[in-house]
């Protein structure tokens, strides 16, 4: 947590604290009817945050609903765009034994959801010097020997808000298939929900990150054209153009930006702009 965030932290030790309950907090046993005089455009629906009932305008995400209810989120929120993995959330609905998972910033609230955020779950990340690692499967086995505690219960897969076949990815690692593990876990955002559900106490997402690092650095062939491009940049191929750009007035810059040619969706590998002066 950064120093800036620490300052904003409420005085209470609790991570989540209802500062001023903007929503109607009602005791569970007495379900108060929605008061007519409130005149809120959106329909209010009941949800339960950590067991406490709130009435929330429908259509909000879980994260917005928590904030509407008065929570100040200093952890468990990050990009608010479904990619940072900070807002892993579990919920259940009455009459369904199944535990559901979601990212709080992505999932819209539904009536009677019982919600708890799991913004962080303890999981040890192995320390390694990446420069010394090879693509041998044994490297991962040594760093994460608990890999072999998997009993194939598949709870991890059910807990993944990204829809990753988490258990299959663990199986791929056990089979020494680092490429398979890297590709299967490509959408992992490290929210840690898999780890929170693991019978064998594995830290899946750390293992997958290592697999993707090894895959990217040791298995995927180097892109040769990239080296050529870097060389051209270093040799000053674009210096003159950048200097020109720096001298352009703001209005002209805006016009150039607005009139720029955009690569069409689904353009092929050999697509080129009409003006090839700067290629």
């Amino acid at each position, binding site marked *: 947590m950064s120093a800036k965030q620490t300052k904003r932290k409420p005085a209470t030790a609790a991570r989540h604290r209802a500062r001023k309950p903007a929503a109607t907090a009602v005791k569970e046993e007495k379900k108060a009817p929605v008061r007519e005089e409130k005149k809120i455009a959106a329909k209010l629906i009941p949800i339960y945050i950590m067991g406490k009932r709130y009435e929330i305008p429908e259509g909000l995400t879980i994260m917005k609903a928590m904030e509407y209810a008065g929570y100040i989120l200093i952890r468990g929120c990050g990009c608010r765009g479904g990619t940072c993995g900070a807002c892993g959330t579990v919920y259940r609905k009455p009459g369904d034994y199944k535990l559901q998972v979601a990212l709080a910033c992505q999932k819209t609230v539904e009536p009677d959801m019982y919600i708890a955020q799991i913004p962080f779950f303890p999981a040890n990340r192995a320390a390694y010097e990446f420069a010394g690692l090879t693509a041998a499967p044994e490297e991962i086995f040594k760093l994460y020997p608990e890999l072999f505690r998997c*009993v*194939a219960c598949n709870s991890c897969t059910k807990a993944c808000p990204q829809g990753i076949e988490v258990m299959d990815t*663990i199986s791929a690692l056990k089979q020494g298939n680092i490429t398979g593990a890297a590709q299967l876990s490509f959408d992992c955002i490290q929210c840690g929900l898999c780890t929170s559900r693991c019978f064998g106490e594995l830290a899946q997402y750390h293992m997958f990150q290592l697999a993707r690092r090894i895959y990217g650095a040791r298995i995927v062939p180097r892109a040769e054209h990239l080296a050529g491009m870097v060389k051209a940049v270093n040799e000053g191929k674009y210096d003159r153009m950048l200097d020109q750009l720096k001298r352009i007035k703001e209005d002209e810059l805006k016009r150039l930006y607005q009139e720029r040619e955009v690569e069409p969706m689904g353009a092929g590998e050999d697509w080129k702009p009409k003006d090839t002066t700067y290629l």
Partner: protein
Amino acid sequence: MSLAYYPGCTLKTKARNLEEPAVASMEALGFKLDEVPRWNCCGAVYSLADDDLIHQVAPVRNLVRVKKAGETKLVTLCAFCLNTLKRANLLMKQDVDKRNTINSFIDEGLDYSGEVEVVHLLEVLRDDVGWDVISHMVKLPLRELRVAPYYGCTLLRPREVAIDSAEDPTILRDFLKALGARPIDFPESTRCCGSYEVISNPDDIPEYTRAILDSALNHGAEALVLTCPLCDYNLARGQKELVKKNSGFRRMPLIYFTQLLALALGLGPQVCHFELNHGSPESLLREKNLLSAVENVRPIGG
């Protein structure tokens, strides 16, 4: 002909020298070992605790997925995988209560009650290919090779999952005969290698090894033929310790049965990955002129 095939984790890492010659040999015999697309660990050891159902989940999930893929028969190659999968399969066939509990926990949207038949590659060679056909396909008979077939435990015990008679098995002997080798029978061929004792009591392993290898040697064997990666690990480790302690002990090369099959079919040493063998058999095989590839090995009818 294509066969649904379950390799097992060890065959993909430490024991590629068991798998790769098998896949190549089966292709030469006209069979494709078609790896099932989604598989997890077999469970490694069959759990004997009556109420420990969580450790049945791994083998059963594999079988459920094989059934889902529309297959009715699953070929295994690792002796431990065969044992674990076959016993879990038997449990799903015979125990209705446990079957229901496991099915409901596994949650794959498909109930399983033991429909998939689990077999070992040796059974496929015996029952689907046939010793005569193999013998006919041999390009490089292992004529001068005196090898002791070693079964270990998990291919033959318990009796209800055994691929052959648990008391007097002949399947490996028949296999070696078909390759033109001279199988050496010895009384320790079904004795345990120490198995997972290597984890809790590693110092006991050399004595298991000594009993097996001394017996094979005394009966005239030049090498031991294996089917199981754990036997390979223990017998190699045991030999190393024995050599360190006792100068009188003679090392014995350890060879997987699939490596001998590939050599006999003329596929050459490159598919055998001898560099992964713990008890290196290469000098013996070179001495017998068995390391040369034979040209023009074609599948049956190909």
